[in-house]
């Protein structure tokens, strides 16, 4: 497909979408810590074997690290003591580590804060968030246009595929428009750096409108340009390229999700 590409990058988009769909669905179906850890391991092994861009993943993880930490703290403090047993909810591994009983961990006066179950619940949420971010990296190891083609070959309407692609396309444009508005306001004497927090907030709020207007105008012009190139002029559409799945792609689509489902069944006793 892509001449010089290696690893995940030369895999068809469909197995990658299947992997992400399976892992993100399964991780919402259970609080079993052992399974969540196993799923995260499976993702890392896949990324490593597929020579993924770990530097990029690290950067993205760093930005959500704060989010995960704060969610963790808030959840573990405010979670109510669990009604079911730890082994039942979080699985045997969690029960073994915590000793299996829901004990308060911090006491302030007569008030018990932070229960074992709170920490476990927070861990589940953090793991789920990580799984979503890491599985997205599998999908990101590929070209936007291949996903678009995959969508249309899966018989989804091409308008939908275009919408997704246009959305991705507009992220940098949004940024460009924001910078544009920023420079314009700077030229007109708005000082973003020195003024007080209140003035600063006001200045940044002033960016929103020109940014929105600029982006909408671009979107408008773009849609005119698409019409001018004959979009929807005919009852259907053909495609220059066609994605074909080779044996590796087919195997990856079937085996990876199936193996994960098997691990899920075993670890959650279903």
């Amino acid at each position: 497909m892509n001449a010089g590409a290696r690893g995940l990058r030369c895999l068809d988009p469909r197995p990658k979408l299947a992997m992400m769909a399976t892992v993100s669905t399964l991780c919402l179906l259970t609080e079993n810590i052992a399974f969540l850890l196993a799923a995260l391991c499976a993702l890392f092994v896949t990324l490593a074997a597929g020579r993924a861009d770990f530097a990029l993943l690290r950067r993205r993880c760093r930005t959500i690290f704060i989010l995960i930490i704060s969610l963790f703290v808030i959840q573990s403090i405010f979670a109510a003591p669990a009604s079911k047993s730890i082994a039942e909810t979080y699985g045997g591994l969690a029960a073994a580590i915590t000793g299996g009983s829901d004990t308060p961990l911090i006491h302030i006066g007569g008030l018990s804060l932070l229960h074992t179950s709170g920490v476990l619940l927070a861990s589940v949420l953090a793991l789920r968030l990580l799984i979503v971010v890491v599985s997205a990296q599998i999908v990101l190891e590929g070209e936007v246009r291949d996903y678009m083609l995959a969508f249309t070959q899966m018989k989804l309407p091409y308008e939908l595929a275009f919408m997704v692609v246009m959305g991705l396309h507009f992220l940098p444009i949004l940024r460009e428009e924001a910078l544009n508005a920023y420079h314009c306001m700077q030229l007109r004497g708005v000082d973003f750096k020195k003024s007080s927090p209140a003035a600063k907030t006001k200045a940044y709020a002033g960016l929103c409108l020109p940014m929105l207007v600029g982006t909408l105008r671009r979107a408008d012009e773009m849609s005119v340009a698409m019409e001018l190139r004959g979009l929807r002029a005919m009852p259907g559409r053909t495609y220059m390229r066609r994605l074909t799945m080779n044996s590796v792609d087919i195997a990856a689509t079937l085996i990876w999700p199936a193996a994960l489902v098997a691990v899920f069944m075993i670890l959650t006793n279903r």
Partner: protein
Amino acid sequence: MKSDQMDGGRSAIESSSRRAHENTNNEASRSQVSDGEGASEPFAIEMNGLGFTYSSGESEGSTRAGQPAFSLRGVNLAIPKGTVSVVIGPSGCGKTTLLRCMTGIIPSIIKGSLFGSVKLNGREIAGRGNGESGSSAIAGPNEISLTAGLVMQEPDHQIFMTTVEDDIAFGPENRMAAPGEIRAEVNACSRFVGLPSRLTDDPSTLSGGGKQRLAIAGILASAPDILLFDEPVGGLDDSGRAMFATLICELKEIGKTIVIVEHDYEEFSYADVWILMKHGEIISAAPPNETDRGLLEGELWR
């Protein structure tokens, strides 16, 4: 290298001509159903008493007290098939508006009050076609694009796919051409405009001139009968301008109708007609050697 480039271009243009011909047949059968006019029509573009006023913003006419703020007024134009016309005039005189009327952007997408009628290959695209009072759109710009393609002034606004080759393929894909045919067309058109080594690159990495070339290739691959260019050589260097001149000559050779809007009229001395515009009106339309030089070099720009 040069001859290779030309060969590539020629095969691209010939194949597109073939498809355009098939398309003309479709068009003819379609218009027979609607109004009975056929492909024997001598004019590619006909405008009768065309006037237009944007419903928003100020325009040329508003500077003159007591007059409506029109952008086009009383435009009568008949451009024969297979000719090259160049529209010349000062900025704001209505050149872009004229091209918008030829592609159905006006009145389908940009609103305002339109008078008169516009016909492409004998088929009315805007006018009083549905019998109501006032002019209206009869065909949408996407349908019109099968007959007339426009390269807009701003290349950034007409490139939207994530690779150069996908962007060139966008038009032929919309016309439902066969995949092999689209690939051949993309290869030939990219070679013609000088972008064959950039096929899988992201268009945003192209230079201004590169984007201009890509925008041209996109319309070329769409293979309409009528090609409209809004200030196409502005961002191009000398080799780009030479490429454009060759392109126009080859397109003319295979019977395409071409309208170019440009300030630097001297380099288009090979055109069949120079159309001079001022304040939304056509003040002269004649072959280059019969055009009033005094008008062209002085009066027009004042």
